[in-house]
């Protein structure tokens, strides 16, 4: 029994768990002293913060812009549909048809939900419209004489399909006369109870407008052969902007119809690069003017880690491949406040790999598909506002060796 008790005691003692944590106060129980934090401010390398433009051409973004009186910009959208042939082959014979009705469908991506009475007006424009179109060449065609239809968008509809069906004599407004190539092109403008804008679907977004014609074919049949429809997708789309602002070379521009991007290059001090533990790094950007956009539809400012510094064509981390190294923040409409992006992981990346340049690429999403265009102060001496700042909070190695 005695032996069993002894063995039992040994087993109990041997199986005990450790619990080491106890409270402490400095300096008595702080070997090495308290953990000290430091702060520093880094500025971009002078002359090496630059903006690059036209990464995505208007119309190649995920949406098209249409606006009326919006402070950010005045825009018109343009769709050109795939050619609709003027006959249909039935039983090896090309046969004429008559159009009974037409369905035109648009995709509303975003609107200012606080502005009611939204109407989208569709106008026929010359079918030769292409990427050379300008506001000045498109807008004069958006007159009543060319009106196809007006789509009244209920205030409760914030996004999704909006459509119009033309029947009877209204079909003539979308008619494609024989011998004109079978192409329908249309321009969009909007009206509402107040200045506003909308974003509508595009080819790149996979939700561009569609044009469906319901036909009666000239055949002695009463079934499906006689009653057919032709669906035509968008072949080309774009939007045009009135008085396109040219990017100011003294500023860092991101977004806008030019889909500008900017790169900021820094030099990480040796103390930070070698041995510091980065606790927080914040990129501060000072707007050069109010950052106007579509109210209720904020753009997203993204800061990307640069994988290799090749200037405008630098490969960057993407949300799909390196989501940890992309920082995002929304830009409220009209803000003039300094924008702050927490780029701690990006700065830590500069420490972790000497192959990664200490640079940040800024861009605005959705590119070439947002009303917002941001311009920030740069290191250029002519910049009207101050340059970006990188605020870094860090710890130096803890002096463990202090007994």
């Amino acid at each position, binding site marked *: 029994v005695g032996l069993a008790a002894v063995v039992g005691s040994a087993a109990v*003692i041997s199986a005990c768990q450790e619990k*080491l944590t106890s409270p402490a106060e400095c300096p008595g129980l702080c070997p090495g002293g308290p953990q000290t934090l430091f702060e520093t401010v880094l500025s971009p390398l002078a002359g090496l913060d630059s903006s690059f433009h036209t990464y995505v051409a208007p119309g190649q973004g995920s949406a098209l812009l249409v606006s009326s009186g919006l402070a950010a910009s005045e825009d018109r959208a343009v769709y050109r549909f795939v050619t609709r042939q003027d006959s249909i082959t039935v039983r090896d014979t090309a046969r004429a048809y008559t159009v009974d009705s037409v369905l035109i469908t648009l995709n509303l991506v975003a609107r200012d939900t606080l502005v009611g009475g939204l109407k989208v007006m569709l106008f026929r424009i010359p079918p030769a419209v292409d990427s050379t179109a300008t506001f000045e060449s498109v807008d004069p065609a958006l007159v009543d004489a060319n009106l196809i239809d007006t789509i009244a968008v209920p205030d409760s509809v914030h996004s999704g399909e909006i459509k119009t069906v033309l029947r009877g004599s209204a079909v003539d407004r979308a008619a494609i006369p024989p011998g004109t190539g079978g192409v329908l092109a249309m321009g969009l403008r909007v009206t509402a109870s107040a200045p506003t804008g909308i974003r509508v679907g595009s080819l790149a977004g996979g939700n561009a407008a569609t044009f469906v014609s319901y036909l009666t074919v000239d055949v002695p049949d009463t079934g499906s052969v006689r009653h057919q429809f032709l669906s035509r997708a968008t072949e080309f789309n774009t939007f045009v902007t009135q008085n396109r602002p040219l990017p100011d070379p003294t500023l860092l521009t991101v977004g806008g119809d030019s889909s500008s991007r900017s790169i900021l290059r820094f030099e990480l001090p040796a103390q930070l690069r070698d041995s510091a533990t980065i606790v927080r790094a914040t990129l501060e950007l000072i707007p050069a003017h109010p950052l106007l956009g579509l109210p209720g539809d904020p753009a997203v400012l993204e800061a990307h880690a640069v994988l290799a510094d090749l200037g405008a064509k630098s490969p960057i981390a993407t949300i799909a491949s390196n989501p940890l190294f992309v920082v995002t923040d929304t830009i409220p409409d009209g803000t003039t406040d300094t924008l702050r992006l927490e780029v701690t992981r990006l700065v830590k990346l500069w420490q972790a790999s000497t192959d990664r340049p200490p640079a940040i690429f800024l861009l605005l999403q959705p590119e070439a598909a947002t009303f917002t265009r941001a311009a920030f102060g740069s290191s250029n001496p002519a910049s009207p506002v101050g340059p970006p700042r990188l605020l870094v909070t860090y710890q130096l190695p803890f002096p463990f060796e202090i*007994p």
Partner: protein
Amino acid sequence: VRRVILLLLLAGTPAVGAAQSSQFGVRGLGLPGRSLSVHALATGGSFGLFDPESSLNPAALAGFPALTAVFSGMEDFRHVENPAGTASVRESRFPQMAVGGQIRRYPLALGLGFSNYTSRDFTLATADTVPLRDILIPVHDTVTSKGGLSDLSIGVAYRIQEHWAVGGSFHILTGTNRVSAHRSFADTVYQPTSQNSEISFAGVGVELGMMRSFGPRFAVAAIARSDGRARVDRDSADVSRVDLPYTFGLGLRWQVRPKLTLASQGLFRTWSGANSDLLEQGGTGADNTFEVAFGGEFTPDVRRPARRPLRFGVRYGSLPFPLVIGGQAHEFGLSIGSGVRFAQERAGIDLGVEHVWRAAGPYSERAFLVSVGVTVRP
């Protein structure tokens, strides 16, 4: 034999257990170990200089009756108090292992020992606020250390006639502190930090010891030891040197009755030699230490002295590394224990319980140290 195997397995089960010290081992090199077997711990350490299973006196190796292996484990149940609060902590450690025995046909005994020289195991948690970007941010810090210095010794004892034994030993002092510091912020936009490092130590020491019996009932033991200087590296980079102490000890043993033996010992260590080194590195320095112990062993059956003896002891001493400059800590301990031998005395278990009080200014702690020792004589 099965019991021996079973006990060895039991003792070896928590292989990941680590040494632990106390809040008074946070500074300097940590809390000094005692190099005592469970047998000697149960007597407050008073028999340490005469105990071959301890690693205090190389001359005591002459007391091994045969080849013997000793392994001890300790569980520490501690209540800590300091200005930051209180906590109950619990740790496991394996502070002492030894193998030794007589060399046939020679009056020589040889021994190998593995002792805890200092242990610096702790996890300290603090809370504070720090001003960052003009805002006070609450932070929580923890500093953790695991490890310490171990004392690997090889000793030899030589018996001269019946009453004298002298011995010498060589000590390798080595060990690593795996240290880490963590900080988390109440504002999660500040990323938590974690830093790790290894502080390693290396040094050597030599020791001389003697035992002298004056008849069958009285004996005296003494030691002198020098541990030289320890080299301190951080992550393999040489950062400093620390003077280690000289140790002087004297012990007395007196068999008052056939059933009762009393013993006492005193140890003095010149830790103040490390004072300037530690201060120079930003530490709180070091002070000389002493320890006095008194204890006894009561044997109910003198014909079978290994059958459930009652051991008891008391000790008082000082600790070398103050938490604040000039605030040397002291400790007081009461201990009791017993043991059994079985398998024709080829195996045995010793148990010891010590209640320890340590204090220095507003810092104090009390602990129950429960020790189990396993002895095997194959």
